[in-house]
Structures are given as structure tokens and as C-alpha cells.
């Protein structure tokens, strides 16, 4: 809500600046026309026009001078991005280098909030208003289908992106209706962090993990066996997705049918519930925790295992803050009976606003930012994982990432996207509520999942996205 004035301000500014540019252009045109006609015959009217035009131009240029370097004659591409930290700095450097390479393009950065929900809300407001600004959008992996179905972002196939050079899962997550709508920029995957001073190896199965966690609590005196993100928010769905894959379940099948009430899914959710109330490896507090709270518990040495994203790794290697620096490692989240080790796929994508006035220039920026060298730089500075598998054989990446690249690559190759549907966020909300009810012991796992599946199917039905087959067969 607080964003609205800002949005309006941006709009006004955009409109004002394009108006000014147009005024300046027409001023120049009529000045030239007037000067040309002066050669042929001295016409009082045109000369008056010319002076008026000159005065107008001077005025406009004056405004320009006041407005600073806001306008010039290059194609302007706007890019909403994070305003803080190393991530903002590396992006600023990369965009500066891009402009040296492309003198005809000028990039204007728009500062946007980092919180995904707020950023999403802001984007939807802009795009609904058919704003041409910003040209480039940085999307969370779950937004691409939504924006594509709404017609807010351009298909990129026409620009000839080298899709075969990316991890297939990251491309699949960005396709809608057979077309590619965004290029994967960096990838995020769920990982298992484990203590190398407590265990010799990473657990190979969830059962093993559970036993090891219990042992660590009993003998090593570690307070919590395992921590994950259990608050009622999107993070909970990614955790559930990994347990679900471990038991061989899915949220949605390839035909777009909801299958989150399968036997495997019930087993997965029951396992999670039992880890809280039976083995008590997972503390109840975890049901109020997001990423950072789990990281604090793990880096204070209070947890034997943690499920988290790669961002936590470099932070916890800082011995000034972390008590477990150089005493932990990462592994894939283990599998269980009937499934296989699974990592939830996250990360950022770059897409182009449908109403962009400079889609070619915008694509040039995206192409530049997704080049191997730029990805390696991001990996080095902010520890973000490249979306190109070929880079995982490069020695620079081994130095840049704290995790061994072949290990990271194995985890990413196991990564599964969340359901690719334009109403993912609404489906996810329904699932979050039911998962949280089951995990907080308000509803048994089977009943919770059946209710979630029913609500999710009803929603798909209502918005006309239900799978074509009759009666939702095959569930």
C-alpha cells in the first residue's frame, strides 16, 4: 500500500520525461524546417516559428539540464533491482560494462524492494497499468507462467536464446504454452546442511537422517536434530516439495492434474509431522521459522541438520558470526522409499515487459547478464549459482563457490520446479494453509492433503485451467 505513491511518482516521471523528449524532438524538427525554408525565401511566419522553436528547445534543454542526466538520445532500458549490498554493487558494475560495450543503450536502475511479495505486488500494479517502464523484469521462478499467461511479458524465442546451454529444469520452469518467456539468471536449490564435526557422512536416506539427528541430540548434546522452514509461507511448500519427491509424490502431474493427495504425499507429510511430534527431531518452533531463523539456529550450533538455500553457506563460514564455520557441509536432501532425492528449484529469471519500447535493447541487456563470465562474477561476489551446467567444470567456479561444483551440479540436476501454472501462488496458498494445519497438529495429514487437493482442483476449475480430461481421472 505504501508503494502506491512511489509507483505514481514513477509513472509521472516516465510520462513527463517522454513528453519532454518528444517536445525536444519536435522543437528540433520545426527549427530545422524553419531554417531550411529561410534559405529559399524569408518568411516572417516561419522565422517567428523558428524563434519560437528555438526558444522552446532552449527551454526544454534548460529543463533537461535541471533534470540532470535523466534524458539523452540513447535507447533507455529500465531495470528494477535490489538497492542494497554486494548484489546491487555487482549488478551496477555489470551494467556499466554493458553500456561501454553498447554506447547506444542507457540503463536506468529502479530500486525495488527485496521482499518477493512486495516486488510481485509492485510488478502486477505496473504491468496492469500497461506501463512501458520497467523494460526488464527480474522474476521469481514461480511468477513466469503467471506473467506469461497474463500477456505481460514477451516470448523470447524470437531472440534466439541458447536454451540448450541451460539446466533443463530452469528452462522448463520458464516455458508457458510451448514458448520461453524468461531466461534463468541464477539458480537456487534446497540443500541439506550437516555438521562435519558430528557426523562422518551425509545421510543417504530420510530414515538415516532421522536416526542420525536423534543420536546427535542424545550424545552430542545438540538441541535440535533438524530445522527447516515451517512458517506458513512459500518456503514451507518448497520444503514439503523435497520430502514429497523423496517419497515419490508430486503436487501436480504432467497433465496439470492435482495429485497432492496421493499415498506418497500422505506418507511424506506424515513423516514431517512425526519428525516434530514423535521423534521430536524437529522443534515445534520451526513452524514459525523462515530461512533466517533456521540459519541462526544452525550457525549457533543448536542444530545437527538444516534444510536451506545456498545463500546461507558463505554467511555461516564467517567465524565472527558463526560458531560452526568450517564445521559443516552440504548434501542433497536425501530420498526415501518410493522416491528419490529431490531439491526444490528456485532462483531468478529475466524477462521483458510486453509494453517495452526497446525490447531489442532489453534483450541485449539480458543476453549480456546471462553470459558465462557475468554468471561467474555473480558466483564469486554473491555466491549465486550459475544456470549454465558447462560452468560447473570451470576452476573459477570451484574457487567462487564454497560448495564443490560437481556436488552443486548434482543437486541442481535433481531440482524440480514447482507446478508451472499461472495461478501457482493461489494454489500454493491453499496448500500452505493445509500443510500448516497438519504440521501444527490441527488436522491429520491425509485429511489436510485431501482438503488441499479438493480446494486446489476447485480453483483450477473455476478459472478454467482444469485439465481437459473428464472427472480428473488418474488420481
Amino acid at each position: 500500500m505504501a508503494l502506491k505513491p512511489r509507483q505514481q511518482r514513477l509513472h509521472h516521471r516516465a510520462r513527463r520525461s517522454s513528453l519532454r523528449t518528444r517536445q525536444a524532438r519536435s522543437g528540433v524538427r520545426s527549427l530545422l524546417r524553419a531554417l531550411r525554408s529561410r534559405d529559399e525565401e524569408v518568411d516572417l511566419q516561419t522565422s517567428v516559428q523558428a524563434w519560437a522553436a528555438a526558444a522552446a528547445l532552449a527551454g526544454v534543454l534548460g529543463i533537461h539540464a535541471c533534470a540532470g542526466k535523466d534524458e539523452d538520445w540513447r535507447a533507455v532500458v529500465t531495470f528494477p533491482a535490489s538497492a542494497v549490498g554486494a548484489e546491487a554493487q555487482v549488478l551496477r558494475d555489470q551494467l556499466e560494462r554493458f553500456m561501454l560495450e553498447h554506447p547506444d543503450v542507457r540503463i536506468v536502475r529502479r530500486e525495488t524492494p527485496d521482499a518477493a511479495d512486495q516486488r510481485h505486488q509492485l510488478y502486477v500494479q505496473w504491468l496492469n497499468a500497461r506501463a512501458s517502464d520497467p523494460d526488464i523484469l527480474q522474476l521469481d521462478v514461480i511468477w513466469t507462467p503467471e506473467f506469461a499467461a497474463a500477456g505481460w511479458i514477451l516470448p523470447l524465442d524470437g531472440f534466439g536464446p541458447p536454451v540448450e546451454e541451460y539446466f533443463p529444469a530452469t528452462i522448463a520452469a520458464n516455458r508457458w504454452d510451448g514458448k520461453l518467456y524468461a531466461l534463468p539468471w541464477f539458480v537456487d536449490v534446497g540443500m541439506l546442511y550437516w555438521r562435519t564435526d558430528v557426523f562422518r557422512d551425509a545421510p543417504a536416506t530420510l530414515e538415516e537422517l532421522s536416526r542420525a539427528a536423534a543420536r546427535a541430540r542424545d550424545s552430542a548434546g545438540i538441541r535440535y536434530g533438524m530445522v527447516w522452514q515451517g512458517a506458513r509461507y512459500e518456503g514451507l511448500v518448497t520444503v514439503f516439495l523435497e520430502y514429497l519427491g523423496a517419497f515419490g509424490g508430486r503436487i501436480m502431474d504432467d497433465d496439470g492434474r492435482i495429485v497432492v493427495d496421493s499415498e506418497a504425499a500422505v506418507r511424506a507429510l506424515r513423516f514431517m509431522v512425526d519428525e516434530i511430534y514423535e521423534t521430536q527431531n524437529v522443534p515445534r518452533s520451526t513452524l514459525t521459522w523462515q530461512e533466517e531463523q533456521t540459519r541462526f539456529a544452525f550457525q549457533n550450533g543448536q542444530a545437527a541438520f538444516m534444510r536451506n538455500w545456498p545463500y546461507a553457506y558463505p554467511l555461516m563460514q564467517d567465524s565472527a558470526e558463526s560458531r560452526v564455520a568450517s564445521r559443516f557441509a552440504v548434501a542433497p536432501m536425501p530420498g526415501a522409499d518410493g522416491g528419490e532425492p529431490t531439491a526444490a528449484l528456485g532462483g531468478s529469471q529475466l524477462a521483458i515487459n510486453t509494453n517495452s519500447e526497446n525490447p531489442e535493447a532489453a534483450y541485449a541487456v539480458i543476453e549480456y547478464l546471462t553470459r558465462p563470465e557475468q554468471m561467474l562474477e555473480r558466483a564469486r561476489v554473491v555466491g549465486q549459482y550459475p544456470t549454465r551446467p558447462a560452468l560447473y567444470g570451470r576452476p573459477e567456479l570451484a574457487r567462487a563457490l564454497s560448495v564443490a561444483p560437481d556436488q552443486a551440479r548434482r543437486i541442481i540436476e535433481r531440482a524440480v520446479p514447482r507446478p508451472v501454472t499461472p495461478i501457482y501462488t493461489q494454489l500454493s496458498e491453499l496448500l500452505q494453509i493445509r500443510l500448516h494445519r497438519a504440521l501444527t497438529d490441527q488436522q491429520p495429514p491425509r485429511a489436510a492433503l485431501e482438503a488441499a487437493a479438493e480446494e486446489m482442483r476447485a480453483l483450477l476449475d473455476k478459472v478454467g485451467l482444469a485439465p481437459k480430461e473428464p472427472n480428473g481421472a488418474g488420481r
Partner: protein
Amino acid sequence: MRGDKRFVGAESREARLAWAFVLPALGTILLIALFPLAWTVWESLHVHDLRMPWRGQPFVWLANYAEVLTDGRFWGAMLHTAIFTVGSVTLELVLGLVLALALNRAYRGRGLVRAAVLVPWAIPTVVAALLWRFMFDAQAGIANAVLMDIGIMDRPFVWFIHSAGAWVPIILADVWKMTPFVALLLLAGLQNIDTSLYEAARIDGAGPWRQFLHVTLPLLKPAILVALIFRTLDAFRVFDLVFVLTGGGPGTSTEPIALYTFNALLQNLRFGYGSALGVVVFVVTFALAMLYIRALGVELTQAPE
């Protein structure tokens, strides 16, 4: 005749002048109160889903209202709002009355105490909510530490994942924050009571308890009603406290109607359905206000007799 005419003329001129004076105010009310309201009602008769532009904005009559009335989460939210309203307002009235009676006594430093009492009320709700969240944190919170020290619990209780337990910090935070406000309103009422009435009661042989029951309470009724109106309507629209403390969880166990409306309108960007929820909330609040105003109107006209 002529005199009459002049009189009528003057009257109508005066009336015109009166209208001219009132017009800006009327226009403002129209613009900032009635227009948005009418627009919300209009919006609520459409499907308008910002995230699904392919659905268009069809006019659907009362379909959104039908969905509201068959939506389990809506009824849950209404129930939670009622629980919160009754729970917090009752406690605030009782504690507020006690506080007001204490503040009404003449003693040295009374001004200071009165000012100090208002501190919780002056703290922004979001800040207060964060404080209470820390206090009720399962591991580091003072609430669990105290309860374990005095032996009521033997292990930390995770307040925010318990569907009933999560209400405790929510209601306590509201009571802590809003009781001073109620106390202030009641104190004003107490100071309006003529002290000679107490003298008369004493002469008639009434003890302190009977004085309270038969003098203080009846004469305080208008002030109590004012406090009730303010607090009920406020409590019915509770949002920030719950948003910060539990986010409506666990599951949706503490989700009040304002949070659900916010969720539909601004998170899911369902303008049609969210507007329908908004209209329902408006109608209920309006009905509550009318009820109170009727009751209060009666009290006020009777008071001078």
C-alpha cells in the same frame, strides 16, 4: 404581507447561505466517503482478478457475495474476529474501570501516573506487536521463562503454533495497549459525577460498594458506552497486531476478517471478491455502530433528567 415577504426572503437567503457554507463539507464527504464506498460496491459485483486478466471483468451480479457466504475461511475469520473483539474489549473495560477508579483518587503525583499510564497507548501498534512477539518467543521469550520458573510449565510452550494458545499473546497485547485509552475515557466520565451525590449516599448509609453500584455505575454508563463503541469498532477491524504476531496462523486459526480481506484484495489481487468482503465488513461495522448510537442516544437524552 410585505413584512412576511421580507421575512421569507431573508429566510431563503439565509438558507442559501447556509447551503453554500455546508456545500464544501458535503462535497468532501461525498468525494472521500461515499464515492469510494459506491465504487467498492460496484467493484464487488464484478469478477476482477488482477492476476488473471484473461478472465476480463464480467459483471456477475451477486456471485461474489454468494462465494463469501459459502466460504469457510470467511466464516472462520468472522468467528476469530468475534473471539478477539469479545475477549479483548471485555478485559479492557474491566481493567480500564479499575484503572480509572484508581486514577480518580486525589494523591500526590497523580498527573505523572496518569501520563505514565498512557505510554502503551502511545506506542505504535506494530512496534508493540513485535515486542509481544519477542516476549512470547518459545525459546528466548520472557513469558515461557517466567512460567517455567514458577513451575506452571516444565518445558517451553510454542504459543504461536497452538490454535488456542496463539490468542493469548494477541489478546494480551491488545489489552496492554488499549486499556489506558479506555481508562482515560472512563476517568473523564468519573470526573463529571457530582461529588455531592456521594455525600448524599453516605448520609443515607451506603457503603463504598453500594455507592459504586448505585451512584458510580449508572452515571458512568454514557462514558462506558462511548468506550464500548470505540473499542468494539476498533477491535472488529483488527489487522496490524495479528499481521505481525501470527500472520493469521497457525493455519488460519487467528485470521481476522480484516486480514482475510487484505489477503484477498492486496495479496491475491482479487478486486471483485475482496471488495465484496470489504462491503460485508462495512455493513457489519455500520450495523454495530447504529446499534450503539441508538443505545447511546437514549442514554444521553435521559442523562439530564
